[in-house]
Every structure is written in structure tokens, then in C-alpha cells.
């Protein structure tokens, strides 16, 4: 990935709010200007240049983040375009409220991946998030559009209150998947023994639109791109919210 790269060099365990570091905001800025930016971190704030080593490059070409031992929250939150690659783990709210672009997290993601930022009505509204490891709770919460694909497991309340969009979890979900879901698709890479609470059993069949999803994921290397089937068990719900959403469990 050419472009700007940031390598964390501070103390391990430091939390940093990365929401200001978006490709569209950094495009065209010099390395010095970026290094002078102030980021909330550890209950205070610090200049970006004091936390990260910067390589020369234009963020418009892509932004590579090496988290090291830091806990980077809100990576790509509100992102509208461009590419961010996290070569490691991301903290909470990665890609929250995102409306476009590509966010790739090679490690794990924290809570509210592609979810909703506090005080806002909707989660992710466009773009693509790809996670190589696990995700925390409330992945895809109040998601409105876009694709989130997680190769590992997701925590509780995946796709909770989802409005639309696609959340694809390869390793299965924690409790209460699709809680309050209105529309949208939660695709799970594991068979479901029983219909989740609030969902009705819609039967098993091959789903043509999953071919389109697979095409959309080409190049991500994600679990569903590699999956050899589009056959899935459908659960319709959340019936308490009109029953127009779906959980598809690959069989």
C-alpha cells in the first residue's frame, strides 16, 4: 500500500482517538502538518508526531496504520472515501458512521465495528470494512448501508437495530444476533442450531444475491470470498420490528 504510513512508537496500552485521521482530511497535507495535528489520547491530548513515526506519502493514496501496542479507537470513523489499512488490532468504533471507502483491519476490532457513534442515530452508511480477526460487541449496530465482513467471531448484539446493509461474520456470533433488526442481512459462516430470539425459520436454499456479495468482496481475501457455497439457512426477523431483516447461516 503506497501512501502515508503511521507507526505508533509510544507506550503500550495508550488509547488514542483516531477519528481525525481520515484520508479525505489528510489528502494533500505535508508530513509536518500532519505531525502537528493534535489527537485525544490517554485522557489528554498529544501531537500526532509525538505518538507516531510518519513516512512520506499522500494519504489520498491510502493510509497505513501500525498500532504497535496502542489501543486505537475510532479508526476510520466517519470515513467517506479512500483506504485505511490497520496492520494490527483496532479499538472500539472502527468505521463507525462510515459512509464510503475501504477500511481493512488485519487483526481484531473492538466494540461497535461499523456501528454508531454516541449521540448519532445511524451507524455505517456505506463503504466496506474487512476484519481479519474477531470483532467485539454490537458490530454493525444501526448500520444503514455498506458491507462489514469479519473473518473471526463477533460478540453480542451483532447487527442490533440494523436498518439495512450487510454484516458477514465468518466465525459466528455471540448472544442476541440481530436484536431489534429492521432490515438488512446478517450472514454467519456457521450453521445455527435454532432460530435466534425474535426470528422465524425461513428455510434453507441457495441465495443468488450472495454471488453478488462475493463479487463485491473480491480482493479482500475475506472468509466469504473463499467460501464455496451460497447455500444458507434463513431466519426472518426481528419480528418485533416488522420482520424484514434476515440472518443467513451458511450450511
Amino acid at each position, binding site marked *: 500500500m503506497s501512501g502515508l504510513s503511521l507507526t505508533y512508537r509510544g507506550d503500550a496500552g495508550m488509547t488514542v482517538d483516531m477519528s481525525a485521521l481520515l484520508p479525505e482530511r489528510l489528502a494533500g497535507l505535508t508530513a509536518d502538518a500532519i505531525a502537528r495535528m493534535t489527537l485525544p489520547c490517554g485522557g489528554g491530548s498529544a501531537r500526532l508526531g509525538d505518538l507516531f513515526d510518519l513516512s512520506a506519502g499522500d494519504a489520498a493514496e491510502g493510509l497505513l496504520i501500525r498500532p504497535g501496542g496502542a489501543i486505537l479507537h475510532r479508526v476510520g470513523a466517519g470515513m467517506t472515501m479512500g483506504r485505511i489499512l490497520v496492520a494490527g488490532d483496532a479499538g472500539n468504533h472502527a468505521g463507525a458512521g462510515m459512509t464510503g471507502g475501504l477500511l481493512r483491519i488485519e487483526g481484531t476490532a473492538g466494540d461497535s465495528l461499523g456501528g454508531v457513534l454516541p449521540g448519532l442515530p445511524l451507524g455505517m452508511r456505506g463503504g466496506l470494512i474487512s476484519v481479519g480477526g474477531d470483532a467485539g460487541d454490537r458490530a454493525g449496530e444501526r448500520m444503514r448501508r455498506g458491507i462489514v465482513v469479519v473473518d473471526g467471531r463477533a460478540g453480542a448484539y451483532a447487527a442490533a437495530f440494523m436498518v439495512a446493509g450487510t454484516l458477514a461474520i465468518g466465525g459466528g456470533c455471540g448472544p442476541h444476533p440481530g436484536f431489534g433488526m429492521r432490515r438488512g442481512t446478517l450472514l454467519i459462516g456457521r450453521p445455527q442450531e435454532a432460530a435466534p430470539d425474535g426470528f422465524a425459520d425461513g428455510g434453507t436454499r*441457495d441465495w443468488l*444475491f450472495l454471488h*453478488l456479495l462475493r463479487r463485491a468482496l473480491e480482493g479482500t481475501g475475506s472468509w466469504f470470498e473463499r467460501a464455496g457455497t451460497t447455500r444458507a439457512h434463513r431466519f426472518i426477523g426481528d419480528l418485533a420490528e416488522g420482520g424484514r431483516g434476515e440472518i443467513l447461516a451458511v450450511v
Partner: protein
Amino acid sequence: MADLQINGVRIEDTFAEAFPMTYTRLVVTADTPAWVDAATSSLTGFATSVIGCGCEAAVERLLTPEETPDSRPGAAVMIFGMSTGDLAKHVVNRVGQCVMTSPGSACYAGLLNGAKRIPLGGGLRYFGDGHQIAKKFGDRRFWRLPVMDGEFVCEDSVAVGKGIGGGNFLILAASHRQCLAAAEAAVAAIRPLPGIILPFPGGVVRSGSKVGSKYKALIASTNTRFCPTLRAVEPETLLSPDVEAVLELVLDGTDETAIRAGMRAGIAAAVAGGTAAGVLAITAGNYGGKLGPHHFHLHEVMA
């Protein structure tokens, strides 16, 4: 311009007169090539001429699973109309009645970019009676409509472009059998080319028309100058005594380059056997250059 002969076949010094049309391209897929054929045969049926059918349509080419959005066998279909509004009306009706009804089918946009778009699934989604589902992958939006064999997947809309309709040439031959053989060879040569369709049955027209009629209600009638049976009574006949049959190929295409390439390939194939195969001359249909802005001069096309 000097006389032009190819394999002894006279190429008349005239031109084909063609018209601007609006077109779109659809990609239809199904479980098997046979069901692709079933869907596209219905989709492109009764679509030979805008005069009587409202639109002109045909399969542009068959697609391999690697070329289609859902990795199944498919076909690219081009549909031409006289205006964007007219085309929109016919496309949504045909997709709704001919593709959605066909088992296992799906319909996608084959023309993705353009200043104007017309609805596909966006116009058909209400058939889902509230159970339709929209999915947006990347920049493309699709509809999933529940139907009795599962789901009909259909792209939300398709772009339209400015194309050309009415490119043509006529084959004059010594017998009907030889005329048909030459026309079949021309069709076979044209069909693999991109960006053009032959909307008439088998790609060939036997009832070429002229503008107007002795009957006031008709805007077009049989082209008496090319009817061998009227040669003796038609003072403006264009047929010599040795011509027994005439067949026409009409080409609709994305642009002049596509039409020109199709005419060149088709004429070359039609005259390949020369006069020994009974082909006597190649000519083209026009209206004196007063109606259509696109003129394809046969001598230039074959130069």
C-alpha cells in the same frame, strides 16, 4: 466513384441511411444456457422494428459464467428505442413479463455508465408486495423480489446511451435459396461482433419497407422497387431481370464504428461465394438522405 465488384458481385454506389436511437444493454442470467435462451427469446420477441413493436431488441452475445455478475451462464441483450422515455417503458415491461417470469432468471445492467438511467428492478420492486429487499454492493444497487422459485434478483436501474438504428444492406440473388444462403453467411459473420444486433427473425428481413402507402392509414408499405414479382409493373424497379430474390440485413449498433464493422463483415461474407453462388449485387436502403443523419456508403464501407 468507380464501379466496385467483389468476387464478381456488384456493390452498388449507394448508401444505407440510419437514424439516432436510444439503447441500453441488459445482462440476463439463468441456471443453464437453455433457460438463458428461454428468457432472452421471450425478452427479445416481437421487437423487430420500432414501427410496429415500439422497440428493437436482440441478443448481442452469449456470456460465460466468468463474465456475469452471479457467475452463471448469461447473455447480453441490446434494446433500442426512439427515446429514453419510450425505451424505459418497453424495458421495464419486457423484463417484468419475460425475464422475471422465467425460472431461475436474474437481470443486471449491461451498461453501467451514462448520463441517463432507466429503471429495472426499481420499477418492478413493487411486485414484491412489501417483501422486496434492496442490496447495494459497491456502486450497484439490486433488488431481491420473492417469487415462487426463490428470488428474482434484478439491478435497480440501467444506463442508456445514444446509438444508431437502421444500418442495412440488401442482397440481390439469382434464386431464393442462394439469397438465403448468402444472408445466413452474413448473419454468421456479424453476430460475433460487439455493439451491434440484428433485430429481425434470424437476423434477416424479407419485407423491406418504403415510406408511405396508397392507403392513408399506413406510414410504411412494401418496398415495391425491390419486389421481384412487381418488376414488370413497377416503373421504378431496381431489380434486373436475373434477380429472383432480395433479402435485407438491418443492423442497430452503439455507434457508427460498430455499424460500419458489421456491414463490412456481413457484405464480405455474403459475397464470399461470388456470382457462382448466385449473389448478383449488394445495395442499401435509404430515403435520399433526407431522414437519417448517418449515411453508410457501401463503397466506403468496403474500401
